[in-house]
């Protein structure tokens, strides 16, 4: 992980090229996080790739309910040469949960982004194949959101077909 100074330098470097791309930095327990604007996530990741963080290890969603913007998408980047990691975080509102997909540049993000879409309802624009990955095709709602209740999932019998409850209401 870059230290606190290194993180500020990295943020400054990216911020110089695109002034409103970086919204802030966070250094916690030796782990570095860059808060990025969702619109600029592709260019931020590209700049980090140029800075050596050439491997995207994971993309995952987070629900910050009741904070706003509620949804977060986190990119875990790894520099194999310097053995260093940095995290990029973007936040979006549930009303407009659009984040540009990074799958065209980072093929590994494909499954991760589909999972974040499935579980949190984050829509990744320009994703080549954005559909549910773990939940059934016809499932309604996004189960990993914090206001989605645990349990109470009805067992669907044939006689009950068509009477599914919508938990998003």
């Amino acid at each position, binding site marked *: 992980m870059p230290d606190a100074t290194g993180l500020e330098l990295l943020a400054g470097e990216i911020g110089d090229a695109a002034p409103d791309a970086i919204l802030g930095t966070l250094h*916690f*327990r030796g782990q570095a996080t860059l808060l990025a604007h969702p619109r600029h996530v592709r260019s931020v990741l590209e700049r980090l790739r140029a800075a050596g963080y050439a491997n995207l290890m994971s993309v995952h969603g*987070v*629900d910050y309910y009741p904070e706003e913007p509620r949804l977060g998408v986190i990119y875990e980047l790894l520099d194999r040469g310097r053995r260093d990691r940095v*995290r990029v975080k973007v936040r979006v509102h549930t009303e407009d949960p659009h984040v540009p997909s990074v799958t065209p540049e980072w093929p*590994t993000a494909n*499954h991760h982004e589909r999972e974040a879409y499935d579980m949190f309802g984050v829509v990744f624009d320009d994703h080549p194949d954005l559909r*549910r990955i*773990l939940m059934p095709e016809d499932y309604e709602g996004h189960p990993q959101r914090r206001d989605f209740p645990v349990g109470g999932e009805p067992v669907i019998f044939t006689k009950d077909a068509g009477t599914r409850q919508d938990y998003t209401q």
Partner: protein
Amino acid sequence: MSAIDASRPTSAYREMEASVELSPLKTPPAVDGAAPDQELLTLNMGPHHPATHGVLRLLVTLEGEVVRDLKPIIGYVHTGIEKTAEDKAYWKAIPVVERMDYLAYFFNAYAFCGATETLLDLEVPKRAQYLRVIHMELNRIMSHLVWLGTSALDLGAMSMLWYSFREKELILDLFEYSTGARMHTRYFQVGGVIEDVPAGWAEKVLEFCALMPGRVDQYGDLLNKNEIVLQRLRNVCPLSEEELLALGVTGPLLRASGNPWDLRKAMPYCSYEDFDFKIPVGTEGDNYDRFAVRMQEMKESVKIIEQAVHALPQGPVMVDDRKVALPPRHELATSMEALIHHFKLVTEGFRVPPGEVYFPVEGPRGEYGCFVRSDGSSKPARVHMRDPSFVNLQATNAMVKDSYIADLIATLAMIDPVLGGIDR
């Protein structure tokens, strides 16, 4: 014939999953301008068969016997473990997290405990770290043995399964001896391990360590000179290092292509820097290298276990922080304070400072990374496991494209996907 007959009625089942696009390829690519003489066939494999590495379903587009396109469809054993963990106190979440990748339970537990320990800023005692290393490396051998047996079975080598499961049982016996359970042991706790290993366990582990390298050699004798196995593995479905890196593949699959990336060496955790071991790498990145790397890894794990048992430090196996660790049983009868701590820990659990951490560990299939977000309460606000099988599965299409369908089964066996981890 090229276009799919549109007038044919679609089945209700196919309608239900209309959004699953079959391959965009409808006709085979023309060779030298000549019209193809066969049509493409989309074959549904699963959910289940692909030699039953789990409830995986593959939509394979075939031209004759040759795979032209492949789509994995997953989610059949999705049990919402990440969601369940959010509803449990940190120490109660360990057993559910362990059940994600069911062949790597110590790694799941360690990734989660390690993330929580990072949030709490805890230093785990050395003896607990060594015990964790011993259990994780035994787990790695166990996972590789299950892989070896089932993969050999896929290639038609029936007896291999019995030999590898014989040794796997020895490891499970060791787990039962030290932790009380064969699988999903709940042995790792936040701050250390639940209790010290029983007397005589270390000797049993060393007995196993003396036995295992010879057994690996025996497996090698059975398989390495077997013409059928070699024909099925050598130069079959290779994938270059660059492509593997772009697809985020980690673990033995990446090392088979010659990249020696292993978190145990590159970014040591849990005292791995104390041990002397090698990282086996391949040269071609084909199925044979994937096989050979894992075989060698078993021997290296034995080396680590032997060193850890011989150098096992004395001392506590749990942190001395009563806000996190349960007080010793005998104190409950005499100390009011211990009783209060015990009550608080068992009912509410410990509170964790707010923050987010990602804790990666090198498991038998690659990088297990646990992301934990705490909101300051005693339950995690988000638990996410970056499961290597979930990511590695994406490489299947790139590996098997333009090879025979029989090689698809062999390659899937060498990818070693564990569906419990993929679907979580």
